[in-house]
């Protein structure tokens, strides 16, 4: 392969696949103790050593025109000189993929302690039956309080969305490559913002809720802040991708009239994005309502907090009532947001 980058990707993928296979077999045969596995420097040394050897092996295979999975995925498209058809299970990549998948399933079963015996154990089944029978006979006495709590949850989600939109709106322009242009300062700002937002988004709102509940105290405010932060990061990404997909023509035309950069954004960019932005915002509110429920579990307020309290006291009839309230609201929000998004398309 002439393309260095594609070759690198190809070798890395094949190397990882081969390393996984070799190490799985090694563990199965050698049966190392837990202490040996916890020795990080030894484990990483062996892993990287194997990776380098297997990447060399993959290079050899490709050199002899044997098509590995990596080659198949990353090689630049070209006319196949071996024009005859070969069944996939007779090819190298077919066998490689099958073996890797089977081994991954076996390892998965071992690692997750998968056990049908546990699942159908007499005593365990009894416990499950007790919980389900309580859940299906919900105690509706707590319904008024549950409704109040879910209203709190809905407004947590609403405030998080409303406050996130203007911030994300501004950030989305700063994170759109086509709007920022290729000026070095603009590019530096673009790169920094993108990184910060990616990191923020990759941390779950659940974690942010824990941070904020220490910061501002347990309650809906902490939950709202957690959702707000996550919404800003997600919306800014969604918005900036939309802004990157707009057509350049109107921008050029408005620039040609002698308009200022702010006018260009307002007259050429904003009209193109206002509806898709609205659709994403409604969708985000919908997601936030669902997330707000979960966030309540770690002290973010709303119906989640109520749920964790009753669950802690094993009051399953009350939990049943809360589950119904959550399900109804989530279903309603989901349907409503789908209808609205369809309508403004």
């Amino acid at each position: 392969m002439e393309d260095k980058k594609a070759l690198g990707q190809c070798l890395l993928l094949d190397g990882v696949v081969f390393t996984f296979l070799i190490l799985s077999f090694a563990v199965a045969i050698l049966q190392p103790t837990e202490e040996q596995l916890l020795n990080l420097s030894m484990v990483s040394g062996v892993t990287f050593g194997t990776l380098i050897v297997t990447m060399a092996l993959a290079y050899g295979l490709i050199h002899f025109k044997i098509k590995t999975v990596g080659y198949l995925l990353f090689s630049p498209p070209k006319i196949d000189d071996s024009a005859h058809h070969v069944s996939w299970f007779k090819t190298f990549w077919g066998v490689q993929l099958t073996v890797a998948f089977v081994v991954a399933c076996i390892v998965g079963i071992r690692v997750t302690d998968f056990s049908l015996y546990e699942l159908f154990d007499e005593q365990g089944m009894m416990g499950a039956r007790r919980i389900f029978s309580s859940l299906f006979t919900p105690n509706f006495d707590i319904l008024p309080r549950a409704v109040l709590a879910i209203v709190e949850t809905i407004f947590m989600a609403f405030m998080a969305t409303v406050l996130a939109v203007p911030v994300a709106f501004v950030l989305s322009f700063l994170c759109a490559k086509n709007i920022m242009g290729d000026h070095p300062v603009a590019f530096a700002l673009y790169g920094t913002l993108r990184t910060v937002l990616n990191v923020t988004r990759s941390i779950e709102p659940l974690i942010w809720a824990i941070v904020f509940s220490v910061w501002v105290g347990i309650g809906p405010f902490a939950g709202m802040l957690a959702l707000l932060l996550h919404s800003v990061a997600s919306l800014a990404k969604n918005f900036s991708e939309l802004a990157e997909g707009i057509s350049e023509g109107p921008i050029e035309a408005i620039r040609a009239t002698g308009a200022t950069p702010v006018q260009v954004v307002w007259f050429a960019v904003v009209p193109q994005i206002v509806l898709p932005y609205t659709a994403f915002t409604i969708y985000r509110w919908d997601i936030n309502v669902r997330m707000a429920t979960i966030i309540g579990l770690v002290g973010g307020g709303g119906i989640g907090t109520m749920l964790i309290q009753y669950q802690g006291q094993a009051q399953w009839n009350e939990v049943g009532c809360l589950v119904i309230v959550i399900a109804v609201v989530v279903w309603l929000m989901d349907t409503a947001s789908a209808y609205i998004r369809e309508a403004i398309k």
Partner: protein
Amino acid sequence: MSDTILKVEKLEKTYDNGVQALKGVSFDVKRGEFLVIIGLSGSGKSTLLRCLNNLHQPTGGRVTFNGEDITVVKGSKARSIRSKIGMIFQHFNLIPRYSVFKNALSGSLSRAGTLKSLMGIYNEEDKKRALDYLDLVGIKEKAYIRADQLSGGQQQRVAIARALTQNPEILLADEPVASLDPATCHTVMDYLKKVNRELGLTVICNLHFLSLVRQYADRVIALKGGELVYEGDPSHIDEKWFEEIYGEGAKEVHIN
């Protein structure tokens, strides 16, 4: 008047990716003339127009507008130059969700002031001007229809009205009829000619079709591979020149 409104000297443009679109093009534009630029796709016609109003920054040479050097200008200076040079495009580039009137009015943005224009406040004079020019291109009755409801030819006429609302001295037209059918094509060209004749506006227009060139141009220049290969009267372009400009074996297509 036949004085020079725009003087282009040894204009060069090399893009960041190394493509040399213009290799030292020189010509003059006289006030009030209808100048047509012809050449194959990729010969540098579009780049040339965009270098004239600073949408692209030239990398060499000089552009003089009314005796003033505008080769490399930035910020408010660049915007003031652009406001005096209107431009229309192959794909019209209107704002699809805005009304025809609002599109035409956006030609006055450079005068309106940023804050006022964001609030949607325009002065009466500009509003009247936008309507007048919509009337001039025969589309006033559609002023309050959304721009994306119009046909291609109608959209291009709105684009002309938008450019006129700027009150420009020069109108640049980048392949104004290339995405229109032959009949509509002539309507749009006729309006450009009308603007040129009645308002005395200098028009610089990129075109593909030689038959249109002969019909509308006062003068023609031809680009090939970023260089100027012909300058003169449109009627003097004979078969030999045609092959020179468009390459061996090219056949002329007539549209009527």
